[in-house]
């Protein structure tokens, strides 16, 4: 008798898309779904948010590529903030948005009543940490719950065994140090409402730590330690690239990448890596190995050190940004391929950051295509040989050592 193979469900790679351009790039680079913000009801007041027209274009593009588009409407409303939300959700539904991500029960109710047919996902702002909560929201008609980032792998496994509601979990990116939503530091320190898009990351500030005033005088602890280090609450970022099998086996339906404020370089790279890893595992789970090149690739767009958050243990001081920062080699995104001539092996490139002849550069494209080369020669749009490409968005041509495709990206080490 052969061993009955467990049916693996392919998880969705869900990427952030702060703009229409990022949406297209994320999907081009393998994202199965993207999440975006609308003009209202979101939490990222400074991220590029989408107009309805841009959403329509984004949805059309996504449909063509078999991808989905979700809209984050995860504000916690005060009186009157919810006005117009019904119309907003209806509009999203009619545009063809696949789901909305909400934490506020008022907005959930409005969406369910006024825009029936538009699936609702519970936002991580609601800090769902147990299966009973998942069942509560499932009974309210929600399609999916985005788990709190404080949940462990073991806890996900237990939850999965007891509910069939879709589970979405963060697998990469920056983390709130608090239970998301349970933090009003910005409200109290800067009069900006963290749950209405005003978070000013007060957790990442430096603080002094004191004991109670003794005999009328504050006693600073910060000053008395061997290490001269202020108190802070800054978390390192998360990367679960080395644990793709565990996430799939334990039934996570959607792999969420954080970062609607992040660059094209970040979005394309991270989506590309996780899609490659998921594809590799789904094709042949038994012989799967996590490739070092995937890990290396993620470090190229890392802004902070990387950890596995709460998945395997409660984060210690090593998962907070104390002391000297380890130097992370940083890369800059220098251009994108507009066209490629197979006969002459010459690529036409749009510059996105300055670079020069002699630079070692790296091309990458969807499907985890990669190669490095040195810039020996390049020409401007008038065919004149140039040493440097200093002008933003200038179009230039250069010979390449391997074939490239439209939409491939170029980076170099800083």
């Amino acid at each position, binding site marked *: 008798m052969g061993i009955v193979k467990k049916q693996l469900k392919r998880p969705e790679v869900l990427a952030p898309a702060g703009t229409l351009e990022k949406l297209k790039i994320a999907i081009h680079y393998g994202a199965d779904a993207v999440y975006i913000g609308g003009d209202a009801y979101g939490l990222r007041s400074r991220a590029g948010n989408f107009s309805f027209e841009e959403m329509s274009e984004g949805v059309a593009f996504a449909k063509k590529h078999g991808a989905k588009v979700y809209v984050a409407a995860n504000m*916690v409303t005060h*009186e009157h903030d919810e006005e117009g939300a019904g119309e907003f959700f209806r509009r999203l539904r009619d545009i063809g948005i696949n789901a909305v991500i909400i934490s506020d029960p008022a907005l959930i109710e409005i969406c369910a009543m006024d825009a029936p047919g538009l699936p609702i996902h519970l936002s991580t702002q609601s800090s769902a940490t*147990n299966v009973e909560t998942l069942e509560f929201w499932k009974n309210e008609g929600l399609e999916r719950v985005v788990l709190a980032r404080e949940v462990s792998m073991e806890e996900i496994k237990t939850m999965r065994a007891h509910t069939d509601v879709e589970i979405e979990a963060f697998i990469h990116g920056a983390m709130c140090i608090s239970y998301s939503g*349970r933090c009003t530091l910005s409200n109290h320190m800067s009069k900006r409402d963290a749950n209405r898009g005003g978070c000013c990351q007060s*957790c990442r500030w430096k603080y002094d730590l004191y004991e109670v005033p003794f005999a009328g005088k504050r006693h600073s602890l910060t000053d008395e330690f061997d290490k001269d280090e202020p108190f802070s609450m800054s978390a390192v970022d998360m990367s679960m690239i080395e644990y793709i099998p565990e996430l799939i086996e334990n039934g996570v339906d959607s792999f969420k990448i954080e970062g609607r404020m992040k660059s094209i370089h970040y979005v394309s790279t991270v989506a590309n890596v996780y899609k490659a890893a998921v594809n590799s595992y789904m094709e042949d789970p038994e012989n799967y190995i996590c490739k070092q090149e995937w890990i290396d690739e993620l470090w190229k767009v890392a802004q902070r050190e990387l950890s596995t958050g709460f998945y395997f243990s409660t984060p210690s001081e090593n998962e907070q940004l104390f002391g000297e920062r380890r130097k992370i080699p940083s890369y800059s995104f220098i251009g994108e391929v507009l066209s490629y001539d197979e006969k002459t092996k010459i690529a036409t490139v749009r510059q996105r950051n300055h670079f020069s002849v002699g630079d070692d550069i790296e091309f990458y494209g969807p499907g985890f295509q990669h190669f490095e080369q040195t810039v020996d020669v390049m020409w401007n749009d008038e065919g004149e040989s140039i040493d440097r490409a200093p002008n933003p968005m200038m179009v230039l041509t250069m010979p390449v050592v391997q074939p490239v495709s439209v939409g491939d990206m170029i980076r170099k080490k800083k």
Partner: protein
Amino acid sequence: MKINITATVESISQAEKLLEAGVDTLYFGGKTFGLRLPYNFSLEEQQALTELSHRFGKKVTIAVNGLMHPEKMAQLPEYLSFLEGIQADAVAVGDPGVIHVIRRDNLQLPFIYDGHTMVTSARQMNFWYKRGAIGSVVAREVPYLELKEMKNKLLGFGEILVYGATCIHQSKRPLLENYFNFVESEARDTTRESDLFLSEPKKVETHYSIYEDEHGTHIFATNDLNLMEHLDKLADLNFLHWKLEGLYTPGDNFVEIAKQFVEAREALEQGRWSEDLAQELSKNVSSLHPDKRALDTGFFLMSPEEVK
């Protein structure tokens, strides 16, 4: 008009004094399920407190308002049955999973929704009332002018903190322990009793109390809240459930503070309220408040436009 004053409890003897002082509802619980409580009562003590309150013809609300991870959830049904058995008048709940269990197990246990920062509009509160909540605890970040907007919209009662500390951050991480581990090797006391606080380097007046327990790390606003001088406004808006929170105000001082609020309630109920009385009672509260902590009105008087 019947105003209900709820007060936290740190001991059985304090509970007796609070009931004698005229408090209507005792608020307490155990550390496993309750958040930021002055004392961790055993099951026997929770039963004794409930019986004590009922002997006085008063009520109890028991805190079951933590964010529950599966380990706690596994112990929850038994605890809720226990609370039903001792005839707890209500439980405060912040995790919808607890509501799910109350319904699933068909428990006769009224609940108050206490989602902390997440309770900021009438429509949200009504969401929970429609799902069985008898009341909900309004977030500290909701100003008076917004409470005014909520008037006549609510399907249940809205509880307002009128005295005590305001939590502004809950992390699952042991933030103090992590910091101490980084700066020195010896372990330090990170409990509430250690009385640690943070301050912004350029704002010496800031004083954010911080401690750890099994729910994580908790950080509090610089000033504790005292709405004594604005109780008439709350009464006018029909916000008649007031909470006194004694996390940082121990012993008899807290009882004496409760008496000031009971006096205010009686004055309002009997039409004796005056600004002079309010100021006098407020002054009493200030003098009874711990020396090392300050009071203000929090977000109450802020314009809704001020914090966006």
